[in-house]
């Protein structure tokens, strides 16, 4: 036993020696044999270069390019790799002062001493060229390629949206993003960020102390190739969009055009707008602040989706449909119009008179008819015991027609509009109200608030005789053969198809013999409806809703011009010009077009 323990001394020392020898062998191998470290001997370092994928392009429905990428160059800095350098030379080359330089270096250091940060953003090709020649003098700096969004035509700014650098909150929530990355902030860029952005790649290169690349690390075995973003085909017709924006110049308001059979938005104009090229590149934030502060034009505000207006007379179409569906009226019902609808000592005037049926009521926009119809819907004692029940039934129909709620498709920042609930009126009138208290809703005045998009959708329902497909903006993703079918569901409005026939008939008469006869287009069967939305803040809004051809609708257009006055004056010519432009490609009424172009409201 004793001897045995004595031997253990040697075993311990021997085992220790063997272990140390193994370590030494490994060191011998690393330091003297393995050649990859010998290759790396010249002061190398690994640099992780992020390969930014090209963002997907955006085309219109006819394959015209709407958004593409342009090359730009960022000067990056890795604070830990900085050595002494000629700061004056760098300042001169970049045209910045010394304070800015120090400030930027501090910021980069605070972000991370190891990870590259952007030092100078989006240099032009020329600036980058002259810098690249002497980049070797500035160790720790390198140039990274990037792409910027560019817009061949300065249109559809609201709907295309823009991209910008991610903020730190997003970086925290989504680890995909790093400081300096771009992300869609609004519009299609935001809604389809994941499709458009692609997947970043990573290249690992060895660089020497002079900041020169020495080749790839492990022959590129660890590199990950960037996957470019998917291209998008949007539903817009670039040509129509351009034309719409031109017609709306100098006016506040919006145009929404939808293809009724698909719910595809053909054009969506919000005026005043801005040039999307302003929100790109170095001056983006400067321009953004400028646009944001423009309280006269409010160009960033997307009126087509975010402005809630009293719908005006175009809302009568909805009420007519509900009255028919509810059986309050039929095609032969006629109400006598004595030039107005009396509520106690107050009268809602009407320009029209005589016995009126639904077709004529639409044709002449008869206030009396629609007030009576609305009163009878909500006060239908046979069906609804109380006014609350009656009103709620009406409200359900209105919701079914797409009002008072968001469509929640791929459109940015939609407003739901407002269709008040029965509770609201209970509170407003302390429980004592009847059909007459709210009868102005029947003609599109009063408490109802709708967005131009919702009104355009109502037209689609009429054009489709009862259903709609949620309005959306992207047609295909990745390739034109890969349709975006997230929004192809037909939604039933709750109104039977047969009730649309008299309404459409009336709308056709609006064009030929009614309130919009001056805007009729010879040779085109149009169904239209004028509207004049009362505006407590000033002149009435001019509203017009139409679709064509009325027997086989291809396009539905809704136009609202703020403070434009009566619907037939401004909105109707614009809407019919749009129809003509889309269906015929030219206008047969150059004088009308010229007249519209010269109108300015601000």
């Amino acid at each position, binding site marked *: 036993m004793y001897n045995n323990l004595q031997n*253990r001394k040697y075993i311990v020392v021997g085992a220790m020696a063997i272990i140390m020898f193994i370590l*030494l062998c490994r*060191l011998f191998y*690393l*330091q003297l044999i393995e050649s990859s470290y*010998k290759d790396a001997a010249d*002061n190398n370092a690994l640099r992780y270069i992020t390969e930014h994928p090209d963002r997907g392009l955006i085309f219109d429905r006819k394959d015209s390019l709407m958004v593409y990428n342009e090359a730009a160059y960022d000067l990056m800095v890795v604070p830990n790799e900085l050595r002494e350098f000629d700061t004056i030379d760098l300042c001169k080359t970049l045209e910045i002062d010394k304070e800015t330089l120090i400030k930027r270096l501090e910021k980069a250091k605070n972000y991370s*001493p190891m990870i590259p940060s952007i030092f100078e953003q989006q240099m032009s090709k020329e600036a980058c060229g002259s810098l690249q020649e002497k980049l070797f003098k500035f160790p720790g700096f390198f140039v990274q390629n990037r792409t910027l969004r560019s817009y061949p035509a300065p249109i559809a700014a609201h709907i295309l949206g823009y991209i910008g650098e991610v903020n730190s909150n997003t970086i925290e929530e989504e680890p995909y993003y790093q400081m300096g990355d771009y992300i869609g902030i609004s519009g299609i860029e935001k809604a389809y960020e994941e499709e458009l952005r692609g997947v970043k790649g990573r290249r690992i290169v060895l660089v020497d102390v002079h900041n020169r690349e020495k080749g790839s690390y492990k022959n590129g075995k660890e590199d990950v190739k960037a996957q470019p973003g998917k291209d998008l085909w949007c539903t817009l017709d670039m040509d129509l969009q351009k034309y719409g924006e031109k017609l709306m110049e100098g006016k506040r308001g919006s145009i929404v055009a939808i293809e009724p059979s698909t719910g595809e938005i053909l054009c969506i104009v919000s005026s005043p707008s801005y040039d999307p090229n302003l929100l790109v590149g170095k001056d983006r934030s400067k321009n953004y602040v400028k646009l944001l502060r423009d309280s006269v034009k409010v160009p960033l505000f997307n009126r087509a989706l975010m402005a809630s207006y009293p719908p005006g007379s175009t809302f009568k179409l909805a009420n007519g449909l509900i009255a028919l569906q509810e059986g309050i009226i039929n095609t032969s019902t006629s109400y006598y119009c004595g030039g107005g609808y009396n509520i106690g000592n107050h009268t809602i005037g009407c320009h029209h008179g005589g016995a009126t049926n639904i077709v004529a009521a639409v044709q002449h926009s008869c206030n009396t008819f629609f007030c009576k119809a609305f009163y009878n819907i909500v006060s239908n004692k046979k069906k609804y015991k109380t006014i609350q029940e009656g009103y709620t039934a009406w409200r359900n129909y209105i919701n079914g027609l797409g009002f008072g709620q968001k469509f929640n498709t791929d459109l940015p920042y939609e407003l739901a509009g407002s269709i008040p609930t029965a509770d609201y009126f209970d509170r407003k009138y302390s429980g004592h109200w009847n059909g007459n208290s709210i009868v102005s809703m029947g003609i599109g005045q009063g408490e109802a608030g709708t967005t131009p998009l919702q009104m355009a959708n109502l037209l689609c329902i009429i054009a489709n005789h009862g259903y709609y497909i949620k309005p959306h903006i992207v047609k295909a993703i990745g390739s034109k053969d890969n349709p975006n079918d997230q929004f192809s569901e037909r939604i039933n409005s709750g109104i039977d198809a047969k009730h649309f026939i008299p309404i459409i008939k009336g709308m056709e008469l609006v064009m030929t013999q009614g309130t919009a006869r001056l805007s009729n287009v010879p040779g085109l069967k149009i169904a239209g409806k004028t509207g004049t939305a009362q505006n407590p803040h000033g002149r009435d809004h001019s509203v017009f809703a139409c679709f064509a051809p009325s027997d086989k609708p291809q396009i539905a257009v809704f136009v609202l011009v703020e403070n434009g006055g009566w619907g037939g004056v401004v909105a109707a010519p614009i809407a019919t010009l749009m129809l003509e432009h889309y269906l015929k490609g030219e206008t047969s009424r150059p004088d009308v077009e010229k007249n519209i172009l010269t109108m300015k409201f601000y």
Partner: protein
Amino acid sequence: MYTDPRQRISRGFDVRLIAVYLALIIIGWLAVFSSSYDPHAATGFFDFSKPYCKQLIWMGASILLAVVLLLIESRIYQYFAYHIYVVCILIMVAVLFVGTEISGAKAWIKIGSFSIQPTEFAKCATALALAKFLNEGKTVSERKNIWFLASIFLIVPIAITILQHDAGSALVFLSFIILFYREGLNQDFIIVALFAALLAVVTLMFNEVYSLALLLTTYLALWFFNRRNKKRIIRYSILLGVGIALIFAVNLAYEHILEPHQKQRIESLFGRTSDPSGIDFNITQSKIAIGSGRLFGKGIGNGTQTKYNFVPEQSTDFVFCGIGEEMGFMGSLIIFGLFGYLIFRIITLSEKQRNPFVKYYGYGIASVIFFHFVVNIGMTIGLVPVIGIPLPFISYGGSSLLSFTTMLFIFIKLNES
């Protein structure tokens, strides 16, 4: 403190150990200096926020401490060994509640701008306490359950360091097994422990199927060769059960107990993941730094990998990178030579002691130093998972330097008496 080398070793301080000690701390300071000195710094050379300046203070303090230790009466260590151990343990427990957290381990006491890690001193205290315990009463071989009782001295600090989330230091206490083995711990125990470690590694590297296969094959082989010896077969069968339990315990521990960064380190070592920007990145950079040193190195202060922070913790746990890069393989040889000699010398001197207390203590500290050395260097060259323990005498940091100084100089003093 004049010592005549011709005198018998036991009559004076061991000059060779002191010389090795001084050489190591000087090399250590050079490595810390070259990785933290910035010639462009506005503050000049004596900037006391810089590691190399702080380290200079620690070195001064250590040498002072060494002198004091050499002057103190050596018998107090044996007499007060348990007291010192208990005090250290109590401080460690206190740190658990009032300590400061540094890189994930709540194991530090902050005093001004300096931080102290009591665990470092506990290693020395444990060595003293164990030495005293083994030296009590009858000889080791005559005492029952001695190794079980002795291991309690290890389990207490191990438990506390695990609670402090300092798994690296916890492992260090296991190095005392070397001392146990030397003093008679049953060889079978070591073999079983090594086999268990092998099973664990196989389980982590491949999966439990392989380790179960290995275990069963071994069992069947043993069963076959000892089939006439019923007693042994029963014993093997019990071990088989324990082995199976162990394999599943390892898997369970891996999935549920290990913290994500520890898992990552193990996965990285076994090549399960390739992630050059994370933990692999550190090892890759560490290996590039050492590998790029070649035979003679780049010269002190010229190591770009370490100097420009490519290597993480390049003055503390990864300090060897700087030595490998700047002094090359020759530097590695010097370090190995110095450590090899230090450990061998401590063991040789221990074996000559008449007082077993000193012998046990010597073996204890040799084991600790050896473990630190192997794990630290092994981790920088990718042979051992990244376990954050310092390289004795070399790594930047006051606690480590002071505690190893204490450890060594107590031995030098005990050896002299």
